[in-house]
């Protein structure tokens, strides 16, 4: 149940911990949904459209769906985190591109399918538009991570209505 507080002309609404956790979960599941859950519908729709558009542009330009590589574990892990910021859409994109939710670059090809997935990854990286697509895809994920903090702030009443 939201509690509304008015102070010095600025109205804020605070939510209990459960509602905030639900909103943050919703925000990760679908960009903008967390704001909608907290009643910030226009803001949520704007962010949702912006982030989904950015992510779609990235996929259309062969954006890199990062794989954790043992040879560069730190950087590639950060890349995967940026990808995962967009939520389950990342899993769906990987299933579409790699045929399964692949997150690790196969260091030893135990099967033909692992070799095929590594070739898909390399082919996309070699594409002429991949540098643009990668910027869009990773930025969309990072922007959604920022939105989780925004939802947290709105839930705690740190933002004016």
């Amino acid at each position: 149940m939201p509690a509304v507080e008015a102070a010095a002309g600025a109205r804020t609404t605070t939510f209990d911990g459960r509602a905030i956790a639900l909103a943050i979960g919703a925000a990760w599941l679908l960009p903008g949904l967390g704001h909608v859950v907290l009643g910030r519908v226009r803001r949520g729709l704007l962010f949702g459209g912006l982030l989904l558009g950015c992510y779609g542009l990235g996929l259309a330009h062969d954006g890199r769906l990062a794989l954790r590589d043992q040879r560069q574990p730190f950087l590639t892990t950060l890349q995967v985190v940026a990808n995962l910021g967009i939520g389950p859409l990342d899993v769906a994109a990987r299933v579409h591109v790699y045929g399964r939710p692949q997150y690790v670059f196969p260091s030893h090809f135990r099967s033909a399918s692992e070799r095929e997935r590594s070739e898909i990854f390399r082919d996309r990286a070699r594409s002429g538009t991949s540098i643009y697509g990668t910027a869009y895809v990773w930025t969309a994920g990072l922007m959604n991570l920022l939105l989780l903090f925004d939802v947290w702030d709105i839930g705690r009443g740190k933002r004016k209505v």
Partner: protein
Amino acid sequence: MQSHFLHMLLYSTIVSTFLAVLVREDRRERLRLGLTIWLAMVGGAVVLAHLMYPFPR
């Protein structure tokens, strides 16, 4: 789309819109911040590109 410049314009528009809406509540302040970020990204890249032009390698 293969144009590096058009991608830069599009990317700058997306990022500046996102940050302006995220950080500012007032419409006029949003517009001002969004334009500032957009001009900094696009203008900065164009200026930097011209400064680097005499040094291709």
